[in-house]
């Protein structure tokens, strides 16, 4: 039986995992951008004192994913 240590020390395995992470992050980044746009629409429909907070959280969420993609490319 192949040990986990042997499996994860294989550069090809790590490359596949890196590719999987990048694809997942790219797909999620699209979703996070949709969240940003939808929050803009929601806050336009119903304006409250929390509108700036929701917009800020949506942008932080989106840029966090983008930052993570960059980290994935740099670190992995």
């Amino acid at each position, binding site marked *: 039986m192949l040990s986990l240590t042997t499996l*994860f020390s294989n550069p090809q395995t790590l490359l596949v995992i890196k590719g999987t992470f990048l694809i997942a992050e790219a797909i999620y980044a699209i*979703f996070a951008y949709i969240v940003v746009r939808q929050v803009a629409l929601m806050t336009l429909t119903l304006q409250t004192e929390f509108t700036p907070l929701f917009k800020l959280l949506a942008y932080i969420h989106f840029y966090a994913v983008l930052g993570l993609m960059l980290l994935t490319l740099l670190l992995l």
Partner: protein
Amino acid sequence: MKLLYSSYVKDPVGVCFTGEDSDEKILLVLRKHVITNLRWILGTILLFNAPVIAAAVLRVNGVTSLDFMPLTFRFIGLTLWYIISFGYFFTSFLIWFFSTYIVSDKRVVDIDFHGFIHRSFSEALLSNIEDLTHRVSGATQVIFHFGTVDIQTAGESREIEFEKVPNPAHVQDFISDLTAKFHHHRRENA
């Protein structure tokens, strides 16, 4: 602040909706009862604790350390997991927060966000409201005192539903009094 977590806010401050008239006053903002959020709240708790649970399961199965995977991979994987968990919590909360039922001194408004990307906006003038009924069905609704208020309007048999709102009897009574007052003023001015 109450607007952030409450399903029943009377005379809310700092709230306006699209299409609101300048002389219009919002009297009541309603949402689905907080208990209806239990599923996604528990889901969020589960998601945030999943790495801890996974580590415990692995330990039970003899995997005591994750050192076989490089630290950078573990960091990226964990960060992505928590970002996705936050995304789930955030979108679920937003759907609940923005799916509102508004009662103003001129109309009733039903703003629905189905899923996350589908929006519907229905309104009925107080003058067009013909019939009001409320329903409380099921043990959960009885225990937590929430239900549905059906607002029948004139014209094309359109109905607006205030689904799973707190104190449905009081909401019905509130709208009924408002409608009566509206018709009374109209008769006086006629």
